[in-house]
């Protein structure tokens, strides 16, 4: 694996993917190689070209670039160790021409590629004969297939896995796990044809005493028909997390009796809830501003048995700008002179703190037996962050390897987080105001939790990085499209492979060896800047100065010890066996030479 030697340190998942596809293509006998990296089944070469990669860490490197319908691959020539790049085209957000035919200076004519994963790639070409025209056009077409009438790679991939990731999440099964339906909550198929709400899943859990007619009426008063439905129920105190979009109050301050009654029904499902807490994720001013566009929030007068709490989390535009600032201070070089104040000025961790502390408040309410409603404007960004994080704190199932996949499938994918719009899969419009790193921010929050509770999660950091890498790669169907109805229409489950097929076929790589099952109580992370850290191994992973540890020393040592334990146990078993057989014939201690040999053989330093 020469890639390991490269100036870029690939994260484990990328390497793993190379390794896996090696196996896959071996099987399919079609051993086509890109330099020495095998292609994925269904991957096809489009163009290759001599080029200079302007590495921000090592300077210009001569080599050859290969472009397929899935990736951009670069390998240096005459450099030892070889410099390689392996970038799925889905990661590219923008391709620009750099310099003109008459530009002066070395390596001033070429391409500048902006990626969604916190890096930029610059290539220089010879200035004669429009040498970049073909490669620019091809990159532009294949990086943004949807803008050119082409298909995303996920629909072209021929990958096969033992596991079928599409079976990971079954909503009825998941609700059954939560003890639903019960005497207060029922499962409804009212949205089977996406008629009630086209961005919701087909299967919803609603209060038993609310009729389908009630639900239809409530849908008229909630933005995009996203009515309050159950996300999670506490197994003991029966307090529930429900999620929805903002009420359509508008400038005139409209009221809707059905909506008010519906929320009170939700409150009444739990006897301990005297007041239903409505967490509006937005800052107060934003909620007020939304009245101008027909939205708003639940007024005190209208909703008598509810209390409204604003969580001050900012909107997608603020988050996008914050990440942009973060990228400025970490790529290509880490800001040196004023690292900490620069970090603070990006506000990235401040936003993480707000999201986490919002989720903590939700979890706290639930564990004290009080039901909550969570919404923001449309209920698919901040709401998804809050409900899923609160569920992660409350329910240890979601902290398992499987459970986490279920959580993502449920709260994010099925409830219509607009992945296509937020990520801009295959779309050339890099400046689209709909794009925003909301999901990344959520994964960052999860990472913060795993840092604070290193034994509470069954999965490791590599899983989180793999999820983020394939959020952009378009190799799997999991994160494509904005909602379930669109996924159905495009037959995603039929025509693409699930990310979980890939992940679950290599479970061992993503398992946290320190995971301890004993956690029954709620995990409250500390949402203080004192404990929040920048996720260096994700945001600064391209920088070779920041040492990347494939396995943390802690993990490595633990695994070594586990192996040693196995070895000792086996030896002990052997000895006991031989003892029992030879006990009668030779009961005295064995001759001094043999045991000491045995022991030195086992001598592994502690």
């Amino acid at each position, binding site marked *: 694996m020469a890639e390991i030697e490269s100036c870029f340190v690939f994260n484990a998942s990328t390497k793993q993917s190379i390794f896996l596809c090696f196996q896959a293509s071996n099987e399919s006998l079609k051993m086509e190689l890109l330099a020495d990296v095998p292609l994925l089944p269904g991957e096809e070469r489009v163009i290759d070209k001599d080029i200079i990669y302007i590495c921000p860490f090592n300077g210009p490197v001569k080599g050859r670039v290969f472009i397929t319908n899935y990736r951009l691959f670069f390998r240096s020539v005459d450099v030892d160790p070889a410099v390689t790049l392996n970038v799925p085209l889905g990661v590219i957000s923008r391709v620009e021409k750099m310099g003109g035919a008459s530009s002066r200076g070395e390596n001033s004519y070429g391409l500048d590629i902006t990626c969604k994963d916190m890096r930029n790639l610059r290539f220089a070409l010879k200035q004669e004969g429009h040498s970049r025209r073909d490669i620019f056009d091809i990159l532009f077409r294949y990086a943004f297939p949807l803008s050119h009438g082409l298909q995303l790679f996920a629909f072209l991939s021929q990958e096969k896995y033992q596991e079928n990731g599409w079976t990971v999440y079954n909503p009825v099964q998941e609700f059954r796990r939560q003890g639903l339906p019960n005497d207060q909550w029922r499962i409804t198929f009212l949205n089977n044809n996406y008629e009630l709400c086209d961005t919701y899943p087909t299967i919803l859990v609603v209060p038993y005493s609310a009729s389908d007619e009630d639900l239809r009426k409530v849908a008229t008063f909630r933005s995009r028909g996203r009515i309050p439905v159950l996300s999670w129920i506490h197994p003991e105190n029966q307090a529930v997390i429900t999620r929805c979009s903002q009420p359509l109050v508008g400038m005139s301050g409209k009221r809707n009796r059905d909506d008010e009654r519906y929320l009170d029904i939700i409150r009444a499902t739990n006897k301990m809830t005297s007041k239903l807490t409505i967490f509006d994720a937005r800052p107060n001013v934003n909620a007020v501003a939304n009245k101008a566009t027909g939205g708003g929030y639940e007024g005190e007068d209208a909703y008598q048995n509810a209390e409204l709490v604003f969580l001050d989390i900012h909107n997608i535009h603020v988050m996008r700008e914050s990440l942009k600032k973060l990228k400025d201070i970490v790529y290509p070089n880490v800001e040196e002179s004023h690292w900490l104040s620069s970090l603070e000025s990006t506000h990235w961790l401040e936003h993480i703190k707000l999201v986490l502390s919002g989720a903590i408040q939700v979890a706290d309410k639930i*564990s004290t037996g009080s039901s909550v409603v969570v919404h923001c404007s449309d209920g698919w960004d901040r709401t998804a962050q809050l409900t899923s994080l609160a569920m992660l704190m409350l329910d240890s199932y979601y902290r398992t390897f499987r459970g986490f996949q279920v959580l993502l499938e449920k709260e994010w994918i099925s409830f219509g987080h607009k992945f296509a719009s937020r990520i801009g899969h295959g779309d050339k419009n890099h*400046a689209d*105001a709909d794009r925003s790193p909301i999901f990344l921010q959520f994964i960052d929050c999860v990472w913060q939790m795993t840092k604070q509770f*290193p034994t509470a999660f069954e999965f490791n950091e590599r899983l989180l990085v793999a999820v983020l890498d394939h959020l952009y790669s378009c190799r799997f169907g999991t994160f494509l499209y904005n909602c379930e109805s669109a996924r159905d229409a495009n037959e995603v489950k039929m025509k693409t492979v699930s990310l979980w097929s890939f992940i679950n076929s290599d479970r061992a790589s993503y398992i946290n060896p320190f995971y301890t099952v004993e956690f029954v109580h709620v995990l*409250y992370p*500390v949402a203080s800047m004192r404990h929040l850290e920048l996720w260096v191994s994700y945001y600064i992973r391209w920088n070779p100065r*920041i040492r990347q540890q494939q396995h943390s020393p802690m993990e490595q*040592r633990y695994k070594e010890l586990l192996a040693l*334990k196995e070895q000792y146990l086996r030896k002990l078993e052997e000895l006991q066996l031989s003892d029992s057989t030879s006990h009668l014939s030779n009961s005295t201690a064995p001759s001094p030479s043999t045991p000491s040999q045995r022991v030195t053989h086992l001598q592994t330093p502690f």
Partner: protein
Amino acid sequence: MLSGGGGGSGGGGGGAGGGGGAGGGSGGGRSPKPSFVSYVTPEEINLTEKEISRKEKQPDLLQGEVIFCSASPIRKCTQDDFSQRGIFGSLFCTNFRISFISDETQLEEEEGQVFKNKLYGENDIPLTCVDNIYRGFDEKKKLITSGSVRNKYPSKIIIHCKDLRVFQFSLAFAKEEDAKKIFQGIVHHCLEPKSLKCIFAFSYSEKMTFSSENQTKLKTVMFDSMVDWAQEMKRTKGNCKLVSANADFNISTKYIWCWSHHSGCALFKTASLPLMQEDGCSQSYRTYMERYCTCVKTEELPETLPTIQDIQQSYNKFKQFFLVDNTTEFWMSDVKWFSSLENSGWLDIIRQCLTKAVEVVECLENENTNVLIMEEEGSDLCCVISSLVQVMLDPHFRTLEGFQSLVQKEWVAGGHHFLDRCNYLHKDKESPVFLLFLECVWQLLQQYAPAFQFSETYLTVLSDSVDVSVFSTFLFNSPHHRATTIQPVSLLAQKGPLNLPTVWDWSVQFNSAAQDFFTNPLYVEKSRQDKVPRKTFRPKHQRHQSLPSTAFKSSPKKSFFKDETDSLKKMLRVKRISRWLNPTDLTQSTTREFYEAWQRKPLDYHGLLLPCVDGPALRVWAQRYLRWLPEVQIFGGGAMTLEKKLVDLLAEVRELRGKLDWHCSVDFSHRGAAALAGSSVRLSSAFPFFVSRTWSFKPAIPSCLQKNLITGTFADKEDEDSECLGVI
């Protein structure tokens, strides 16, 4: 103010001690010694005696510890107590500590108290550990300075400790006279200048016998004899001549050998030469040096590193972030955490020390040049840099005993002014230089944990021990000072020389179970096969290659090191402070190259270690600084949960190994199960230091979130969809 141990007051002091002993039963100074030092007037003693007879509960006094005064009822306000009602009890001030004894039944013997300090408990503050005392009123506080209070006393006092604990005592419930006494007593003993003999260590060791057996049992090399130095020289294959000329501490300026690189070059340190002697004397010193070493690079530390005062100022700002009086204040300061941290400059000072050490390492390792580091007294930053260089280069100093020997060699024998820097006598020469060194080691430890035999907890405990005033290690300004101080006392006492305990005798503070926390479970000793004797790996001619001219030519850092352009530099010398704020780009780039070249090689935990000093790599020593803050306790989490898993498994593997050995009937040394194993302690991020009584299921919900966080273009742009298409 202080009576320096005269006859009359000495008898009085004995009386007080006797009273304390009778009441406490654990025996203070029962028989007054002529050398006994009294701190109180007889009038006070009578009062205290009365008080004591009335009291039931008393602190368990240490040998030689006497109570000066006490008051009750005193309310201790606790931060992690949501009811805010506090705990009532009595407050004592002894010659060792301020002690609060709760009226409530003590839960001392709880299971959670694995990590108990034998010298002082969680409600005790050694007098030398007191950092600042404040008068508290209406949610505000005002610093109390020595001599500023006479007859008044505040209703509430807030004590900030050097180990970053914060205590709040309400005096409002005690009798006015008692309150006044205890307040004045505390202020007097914690803030006023005093003489060395008043330090508790002297009363303590007089009553205790720290057999030299204990000391010889320790494997730590003390560097108090020629033999130790000769051994170390042999270990590093150094080729310097040992000089015993300074045996009677006459020579003030000399070049001290620190460590020899396997290539033959060595590290030396020295105090700066007075500028006046530049021509005559220094020339002779230089020829002296050049006789022994073909070439030497001289590095004047003050030119590029912060001053002692800078260090003190910066740390003063830094520590304030952790001395938090209430939750509101905590969340207020959380908003601007990163920029405040930066403004304190503390991490930057750590970075500069690490960077400087890397530069020196580069000289020794890459250029095989002798290095001489210089500083005015040669005992502050010289100690930091020289010991850091050795930790980076020599894996021996990353073992527990090796590290302790290093501190003995570079700091204790090296004459670091511990007494002044720790401010035991309140003489205004305080500066956390030793802490700075520990901070730098901690940075290395968190970056390369498997390379160190000792744990983070060990470093934290060591940093605390500095302020306990019992250990000879931190009691003197130099070996000379030590020798001259100990002798007269012994004459008076008609005993052998005072036998003060060294900090390395950890059994003075912790039982063996607690000491298990000192070892790092990640550390793997170098296996025997790998332990080849140190060899000169470089071609032999390189040893002599470093003639001055060639060495300087090959060095890209010519302008940085002191060489023939020295005089020019002196003329152009700007204020020191500006130098260390703007280090030259040149050195940055060469050390950067050196670091990057090293980093490209596979990491060997038993080889050279270089710290990454980039912004994201340097961190706050969370265990030391965050352990007492209830707001940031991660219940059920923290790094300790990982360590526990590892330690448990290690114990399991050891047990299996023991069984195997037993099966093979071979003598085995089965170490007791590690302290963490089996203990049902609920872990938190502050474990083992802070075990919360009220295991909290309530999360800390941040208040004071900065409402107007974003004042940019998007603040009022709501919201996520088509409404905003115009905004890019």
